[in-house]
């Protein structure tokens, strides 16, 4: 049983390792098969994310396509030692959605390129750590107390500000922030645990 779990876990990591390699293929060889593989996995998820932000079906389809075209065009900026592919793709989808909703560029500290001074310290193990972190993040999300998971989902999936969440849940602003902080502590512990290994 444990072996099967370990095998599945290992396969899952191998699969996810490939997303970063596929992005590298796109950057270096303009490889359309790699792009198609990424599209088939991420495009339906990107569209689902945009729909959750409250946008219509046709807009979500259009913004998903814009996101995927940006993935193709900006692949050379992706650095697999800095972030998981899903993290990088999420930030592109987020920025394109906000730009559309606000008709203003979401303020960013960096342009498309990674700043080596500001990004996480790079090391040979960073990518492995990032994979472990991502699995831990998923596990934590699935085990968060409902009240904490709720504010995380309302922030990321529905794009709601603290004050909006406060009004909708009928709880003080401070409680919204406390719940987010408590969830954040659990994510932070996972990160530190990863770095210890």
């Amino acid at each position, binding site marked *: 049983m444990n072996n099967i779990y370990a095998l599945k876990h290992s396969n899952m990591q191998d699969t996810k390792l490939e997303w970063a390699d596929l992005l590298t293929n796109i950057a270096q060889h303009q490889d*359309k098969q790699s*792009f*198609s593989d990424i*599209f*088939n996995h991420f495009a*339906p*998820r990107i*569209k*689902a*994310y945009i*729909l959750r932000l409250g946008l219509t079906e046709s807009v979500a389809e259009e913004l*998903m396509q814009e996101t995927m*075209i940006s993935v*193709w065009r900006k692949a050379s900026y992706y650095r697999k030692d*800095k*972030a*998981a*592919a*899903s*993290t*990088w*793709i*999420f*930030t592109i989808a*987020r*920025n394109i959605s906000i730009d559309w909703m*606000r*008709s*203003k*560029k*979401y*303020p*960013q*500290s960096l342009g498309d390129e990674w700043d080596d001074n*500001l*990004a*996480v*310290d790079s090391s040979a193990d960073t990518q492995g750590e990032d994979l472990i*972190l*991502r699995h831990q*993040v*998923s596990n934590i*999300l699935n085990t968060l107390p409902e009240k904490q998971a709720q504010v995380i*989902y309302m*922030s*990321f*999936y*529905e*794009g*709601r*500000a*603290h*004050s909006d969440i406060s009004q909708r849940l009928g709880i003080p*602003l*401070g409680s*919204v922030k406390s719940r*987010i*902080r408590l969830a*954040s502590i659990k*994510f932070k512990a996972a990160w530190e645990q990863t770095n210890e290994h």
Partner: protein
Amino acid sequence: MNIKHHLDEATLMSYAAGSLSQGMALVVACHLTMCKTCSQRLHKHNAIGGALLEQIAPADIQQNALDDILARLDQPATPTFTKLNQVPDKKAIADIPYPLSDYITQQLSDLPWKKLGNSVAYYDIACGSTGLSRLMRINPGCALLPHTHSGNELTLVLKGSFCDELGRFNIGDIADLDDEVEHQPLVDGNSPCFCLVATDAPLKFSTIIGKIIQPMTGF
């Protein structure tokens, strides 16, 4: 840069989620250009977004979407969106953090400041978001009126320094406050303090004078 006051976890999480107002996101982005610690923390919050993207139940997409996109990949880039609120030929401005240069094109000292009494001046930033988005210039020896907030308030020091009940704030430091804190910033150095301020709701002044001038100042 020796930064001692950082972003609250809850603010950083909402910035990563894309749920901060435009004005508040602008302050956060400016702080991130100055603070390596918070930039590294942001990476972890972005990873939550990546994990959530992996977890979300996939939606149906148009049958021919992939073929359509593959056909567009070799075409020259034709952005759907025109360059959003970007200043043409944007140049680095010495005392302005990079994200702010999307909104202003002059050095701080050259801005058309509006005076608010003898010691305080402000310049509103056209963020188009709810709440306040404002640059402030406060002369030495000046204390702002004591106030609290209906919501969150972010204050980033761009030049000079101030102190309040929470300590001293120098260049790059950020005061990340909410309705549980009442404070009265005082500029006690020898030079003016320039700050970038954003709120997601009007301030609440705690004195009669503050309540009287509130409609006049736009706070």
